[in-house]
């Protein structure tokens, strides 16, 4: 049997085909997880897994409304981005109300065991300081190699707005990182010609 495309699988999912949806989950869960991880640096690993599961539950729920001309990956990123933004909003609301709830566990400042480079903590903090849309744009561009047009579709904004988001994100990261680490290029070692000045 020829391998079905994402879009065919999604259409089948829309008709209630759990097996087709299971194949989509298998195909794309790594992408969704890595996006969610990078967009929500301060979440624990379990919380990110949970968030990614919710993305797929939400995809399953809205599968019947999926437009076949759309791309499944773009659509999944859109759901994932919204989930990350909502989480951030909940977090802000919680901060305002100083309520404690289940999110406290999710939001525990968990140093990620994947950090080997000591500078990566600084990068994570710098990325974490970005507003959500800038952060999503930079993650989609840098790690998922998406074009401006695709990012525009995911975030439901214009291409020029994407360009502006990425520029502002980079400028902010540059300033943040410049205060904590050396952003000057490594000095080039020039060949010794033996000539005296």
């Amino acid at each position, binding site marked *: 049997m020829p391998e079905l495309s994402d879009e065919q699988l999604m259409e089948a999912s829309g008709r209630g085909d759990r097996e087709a949806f299971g194949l989509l989950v298998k195909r794309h869960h790594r992408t969704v997880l890595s996006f969610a991880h990078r967009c929500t640096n301060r979440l624990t690993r379990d919380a990110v897994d949970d968030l990614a599961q919710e993305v797929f539950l939400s995809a399953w729920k809205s599968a019947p409304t999926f437009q076949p001309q759309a791309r499944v990956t773009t659509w999944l990123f859109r759901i994932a981005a919204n989930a990350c933004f909502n989480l951030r909003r909940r977090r802000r609301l919680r901060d305002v109300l100083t309520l404690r709830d289940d999110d406290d566990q999710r939001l525990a400042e968990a140093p990620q065991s*994947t950090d080997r480079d000591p500078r990566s903590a600084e*990068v994570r903090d710098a990325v974490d300081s970005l507003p959500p849309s800038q952060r999503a744009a930079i993650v989609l561009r*840098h790690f998922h190699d998406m074009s401006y047009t695709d990012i525009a579709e995911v975030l439901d904004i214009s291409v020029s707005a994407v360009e502006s988001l990425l520029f502002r994100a*980079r400028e902010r990261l540059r300033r943040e990182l410049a205060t904590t680490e050396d952003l000057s290029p490594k000095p080039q070692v020039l060949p010794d010609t033996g000539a005296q000045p």
Partner: protein
Amino acid sequence: MRCEHAKQMISRRIDGELDSDDSRGLHAHLAGCADCRAVATQLAIVDDRLDALVVPEAPADFSRKVSARLTDQSAYERIIRHPLAWFPHATAAGLAFAAGVLLVYASNGVRETQTFASAASDGHVADYLQVGFDESIDETLFQLIAPAEELP
């Protein structure tokens, strides 16, 4: 070209989204502007540093967990779609509510009962009942509904 515009173009160049005309324009600006040259170098380094944002391996049982949650969710939706299934629990919640009113009345007197009753008439009763429903959705209700209709 102004520096702000040049910096925006540097960002586009990093993304490979600069056409050849803009590329020539940027090149000319950088040749004459040390500030923007420094920014271009720093932005390239920032882009490199982003690679430090590594993510852990995906858990092996991820697909299974999603599948399990889908099963739970469809069971839940089945309950929502069949309101009659709520009947015994709505009755139970109603009785519990009435018992609560009596209890408050008996232990704290008329004033508290009035407060409780007025909260109920203000719509807060929905909150009380909601709690009851949420809790009852758990295991018991699944056991009541599930055997009648086969879950997917």
